[in-house]
Structures are given as structure tokens and as C-alpha cells.
């Protein structure tokens, strides 16, 4: 485990990271964000390809991946928590429809 990078952050504006393998609740992952290594303790199991929060995300705030909003948080999301359909609301077209 150690220094092996098991997650990817696509853009420095992102507030989520994507797991490149299955990660277990309670484990700590090292994530490079804006050149700094953040140690994040996971508070959910994260299946491969799924996302977790790099920082606390307030309810209604933008969830950012690729440097762009991929939706809004439907509830407060804590650092290290699984971010998916249960706590993110899609706003296709910017919510205009």
C-alpha cells in the first residue's frame, strides 16, 4: 500500500477524487492535489471507478470533477465519503430545464 497511488484527481479545481481500485472504509489514502500530498481517511467503502470527497462539501454546493460542476450535493458530504447518486443531484443543462 504505502506510497502507491490508488486514486486520480483530474483537475486541480476538483473536490472529488476517483478510486483506481476498490478502497475500504477506515483506510487512509494519499492524494496529490495541487502539488501537495493530502492524507484522507475514507469513511465509506469506495468501489473502483467511484468518487470520494477531498474536502467537506456543503449541501447544495457544486461537486467538481474535470474542473467543472458535475452536479450539486444533495446533502452535506464529508471528506473521505463516497460521492455518488445517493448524495449528488444532476443538473443537466445547468439546471435550466
Amino acid at each position, binding site marked *: 500500500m504505502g506510497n*502507491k*497511488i*490508488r486514486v*486520480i484527481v*483530474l483537475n486541480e479545481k476538483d473536490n472529488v477524487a*476517483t*478510486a*483506481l481500485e476498490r478502497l475500504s472504509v477506515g483506510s487512509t489514502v494519499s492524494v496529490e492535489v495541487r502539488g501537495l500530498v493530502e492524507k484522507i481517511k475514507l469513511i465509506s467503502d469506495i*468501489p*473502483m*471507478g*467511484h*468518487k470520494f470527497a477531498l474536502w467537506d462539501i456543503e449541501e447544495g454546493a457544486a*461537486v467538481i*470533477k*474535470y*474542473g*467543472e*460542476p*458535475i*452536479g450539486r450535493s444533495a446533502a452535506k458530504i464529508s471528506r473521505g465519503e463516497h*460521492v*455518488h*447518486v445517493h448524495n*449528488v443531484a*444532476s*443538473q*443537466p*443543462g*445547468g439546471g*435550466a430545464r
Partner: protein
Amino acid sequence: MNFQGYRRPDGKGGTRNYILVIPSVGCSQGAAQAIARGLKGVTYLPNILGCGQIGEDPMLVKKTLVGFGMNPNVFAVLVVGLGCEHLFPDEIAKGILPSGKRVEAISIQEVGGTRKTIALGKRMVKEMLEEAAKLTREPIPLSELILGTECGGSDYTSGLASNPAVGAASDMLVAEGGTVILSETPELIGAEHLVARRARTPEMAKQVLEAVAWWEKQAIASGQNIREANPSPGNIAGGITTLEEKSLGCIYKGGTGPLEEVITYASHPTKRGLVYMDTPAHDIEQLTGMVAAGAQVVVFTTGRGTPAGAPIAPVIKITANRDTYLKMRENMDIDVSKVLQGKEKIKEAGRRIFEEMISVASGKITKAERLGQRDFAIFKVNINI
């Protein structure tokens, strides 16, 4: 920075030096193919359209065929027609003339049958080949390069590694003053507002939104609601949460620059930087539209693996799926799977793609070229009659 290319009479720079045989109609495709057969440096377009078409379709065919002739990867053109089709070979030749290249047009009915047409055509292209052989590569600034970007046979590795890596390469080319074409309008659905937001002008933003609305309407008329069907249950199980996220994974290959222009299918960009072309997501129709617009090189990301190639432009295949790379090595040019193993940064992979693009633009042969892939399909809206 420069690539080593062929300077054309209109000042444009080509990455290849083809003699192109264009059948103006499906009926003359066989003759066009026979003319090109066995002659290295001569290629043809497997065009099946050009007659019996209605609405905007005849215009789309003409524009695409003329665009291929105009593409700086082509040294000279022979248009082969039948003689009674809607789209006359002379009209296509006339469209290509402003490039300053040699363009000839012949018709099977006028020449008197297939064999005579093939014999005459072969004589003409052999002459053109002799002229083409005299031209040598010279340094041409990257600012004159138009790069087409495309993804097909996508899987989870596309949105996480290969598209972001291509996006980094796109940014590098734009920084050099070059042009990057982003397209595949149906793949924008859900993230269209994010693309529109990057447009230089409100008119351009409106064009993006209108393009998306048109495709959605067409799909719904055919019984398919793209917005409701995506992300699919399989996407969600794989970790994709929203439609915006799915679409961004595709769009990200155009890089992060502002949108300088929105163009219609097969139209030549008039601006440099990132341009958006309204095309289908259909791999070959999209590829054809970008090359008709003047793209001299294409980068194509894939997860599952695809062999697609264009008749006159090199197509560089990039995958971040290690299994696909190993299984389809004969089709894949670049492996960026190390990004997903944490062993390579997205920017570093992007740098490798950028450098490969320059090598290919300067003459390095891609896997699709080696395999003789000359995929070609023109986007059409209406039925043929």
C-alpha cells in the same frame, strides 16, 4: 515549434502527400478504386452517395468531397463521375480549384465505359505521382496544424485517463497557436451549458445549445431520449454519477481553452485555437467531417479498441486500457495506462501524445495507415430516394 510537412500552393501545410481519386457518386466508386489500386501514394474515397439525395444532403456530400480535395494532405485530385448523377464531377473539381492544386475530372459515360475510364484515370494519376515525388518536406509551424479529436469504443479508462491526456496535448497545440477540433454533439448532452460557457461570444454559446437541441429532437423523433437513458445503469455501477460527468469525460479531450468558433459539419475553421464542429457521435461520420474540415492529423482515444482510420489523414490511436493495448497492439499507437497505475501524470502522458502527433505529422506512419484503414462515411439527414 514546427513539423516537417508539404507546403501547398495556397500556403497550407500537409502531413501527407496523396493523390486523391474522388468518386463523385457511388456508381463510379468501383472505377475510382481500380484507378488507385496498386499505386503507392494514390488513394480513393469509398463514397457511395452523390445521387438520389434530398434536402441538405446533396450539399453535405459536395462539401465533404470538396473538403477532402482541399485538405493539405492531398497533392492533386482526380474526380471520377458517371455522367448522369446529381453531383457532377466538374462541380467538385471547381470547388477544389481555389487550393491551387491540379484537379482533373472525368466521367465514365463520356469516356466510354469502365475499362477506358480506369486506363485514362491511371495515366492521369501516374503523371500526378511524378509531380508529387518532386516535393520534399519542409518545416511548417504547428500553428498551421488542425488536429481532430475523437473517442470511440470508450470504457472507464477513456474518461479517467486517455481523454484527459489528449486534453493536455490539445492545450499544448493551442498554446503553439494551432487548432483543435472538438465534436460529437450527442456526447455533449448534459454538459452543453459547460461548453457554451467557454464560448467567446453569446452567439457561439447559442449555436452550441441549438446544436445539442437539434440532435436531442432528432433522437426523440426516432424514439430515443438520450438525456433520460444516460448515465446508463452500467455507467452508474461503474461510478459515473451524472450525465454532466459522463459528457465531460468525453469533452475533456478538447482541453481547457476557450471556444473560438462553432462550425457546421465539414466546414473549414476560420479561427485558430479550440473550435467546435457539430457532428454525429458516429465514429466514421465524425472522422470524415473533421478531415473534410482540413484536419491533417487526428487523435482517437479508445478503451475497447477500434481500428478506424481515414483515407488521407493519419489517425493516432490512444488507449489507457492496458489489456486492450496488449490485445490490439497492431491497432494501438500509444499506451497511457500508466496514468491509471499512478506511474505517469496526465500532463506527462499529454506531452507524449503531443510529441507523437508532431512525429506523425512529420511522416511517421500510424498503425491504422499501416493496416490500410480508409474509413469514410458522410453524415446525412434524410432518406435517399
